[in-house]
């Protein structure tokens, strides 16, 4: 008799927990934004994070873009061959990379690398009381830890995505000219002629949003990390999973806004 009630109670608990966490993430975001704009600022920390998040993600993003661009060229060529449209390879590779695959795949790769490290670092600081120590030293941990990371990721990701776009197009170019028989000059003019400014800017704005998500999820999970090594481990996993899912969801919403609204 009590069995259905247990199920209902479990569903209720899960629902409440879900909305509670949406609420606390929203509050965390509001705190972070306030922390970014209100002084004191920590330029050294921002620079440090910019190097850690942006510069050291270059290899990951570059390789991802290179192989994606190359694979894309092969696929589009094979698909295009079904209706004699092999000539679209350069423009579709460029549009696909710049509008979608550059920011999304780059964002997901950086989420794996950066969300996890932010969550682990801030989580460790939480469990070893370093965050408490910051507070007693008159330093707001939101301003000192969270704001610089968020700023660095939000600015860094579009730059990474821009570099990724170029490398991805180059990957397509290499495959196109060496394997698919495209003429080098033609490939480049085709790429440039069909690409519009809006393609590039929409991709970069998406990357910026993804950067924000990556830093916020890492910081949020780390900041609210449970106790001990297990707590930090869980925070790290949650950070990567939630950042990745949110990136994909945000990508869909932004596509609707940019191209269909």
């Amino acid at each position, binding site marked *: 008799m009590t069995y259905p009630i247990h199920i209902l109670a479990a569903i209720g608990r899960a629902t409440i927990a879900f909305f509670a966490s949406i609420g606390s993430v929203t509050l965390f975001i509001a705190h972070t934004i306030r922390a970014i704009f209100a002084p004191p600022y920590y330029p050294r920390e921002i620079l440090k994070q910019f190097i850690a998040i942006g510069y050291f993600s270059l290899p990951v993003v570059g390789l991802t873009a290179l192989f994606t661009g190359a694979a894309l060229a092969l696929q589009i060529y094979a698909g295009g061959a079904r209706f004699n449209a092999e000539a679209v390879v350069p423009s579709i590779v460029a549009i696909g990379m710049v509008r979608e695959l550059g920011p999304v795949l780059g964002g997901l790769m950086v989420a794996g690398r950066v969300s996890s490290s932010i969550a682990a670092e801030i989580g460790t600081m939480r469990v070893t009381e370093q965050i*408490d120590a910051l507070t007693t*030293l*008159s330093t707001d941990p939101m301003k000192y830890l969270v704001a610089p990371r968020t700023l660095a990721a939000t600015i860094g990701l579009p730059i990474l995505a821009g570099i990724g776009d170029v490398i991805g197009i180059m990957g397509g170019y290499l495959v196109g000219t060496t394997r698919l028989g495209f003429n080098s000059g033609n490939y480049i003019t085709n790429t440039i002629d069909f690409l519009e400014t809006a393609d590039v800017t929409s991709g970069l704005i998406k990357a910026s949003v993804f950067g924000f998500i990556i830093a916020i999820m890492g910081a949020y999970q780390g900041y609210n990390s449970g106790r001990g090594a297990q707590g930090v481990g869980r925070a790290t996993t949650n950070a990567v999973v939630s950042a990745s899912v949110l990136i994909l969801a945000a990508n869909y919403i932004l596509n609707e806004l940019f191209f269909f609204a």
Partner: protein
Amino acid sequence: MIELRNISKSFGANHVLRDVSLKVDQGKSLAIIGGSGTGKSVTLKCILGLIKPDSGEILIDNQSIEGQREAFFAKFGMLFQGGALFDSLPVWHNVAFRLLQGERSKEECRDIAIQKLKRVGLQERVADLFPAELSGGMQKRVGLARAIAADPEIIFFDEPTTGLDPIMSGVINELIREIVTEMGATTMTITHDMTSVRAIADHVAMIHEGKVQWHGPVADMDAASDPYLSQFLTGSAQGPIEAVR
């Protein structure tokens, strides 16, 4: 003056503090003693707002600490039980953390940090190491140097001599006493070390089962008839305090 009035705090079913009231006068040193896990560290964290008490109030100079936390922290220093050193920063930067936020130049801050490190018995070469490269006792002393670096008026020490050798303990006890008498700082020190209590404290509060079991001047401690305190002082396994908690 720091005053706690009727502070209670539970973590779920674990009632850690039940109605704790304490007072430290300006320029005095209070030692908090009591068994492991009785809520001594939680008491200090409640004062700092790092843990929110369920009920009760905390007064600084007869005014609620709520709303004047920033001013409080500006003249405050704390040694955490686990050190809580910033492991991404070198030792000297840890010690000088608060100084570096002010107007002073980096060199000046570093010099002050090195002076403070000497006061806790650490050589200059330690300044450029990272916390992970230090022994436990050395980390504790760096934490101590950080707590006193900006000459605070109020200092909390959470087990300053735990993990130190007897000679170093003596050095630290002397240092804490000096800070109180020379600089007139108000201090609260959690400790299990009765030598330390006698060396540094004006007053002693013993916490047991979330309550203040005994409270009085350090001179009255030995003559007190409280069976809990006596058992604690003698370190006997027999008595009213259960060994398994």
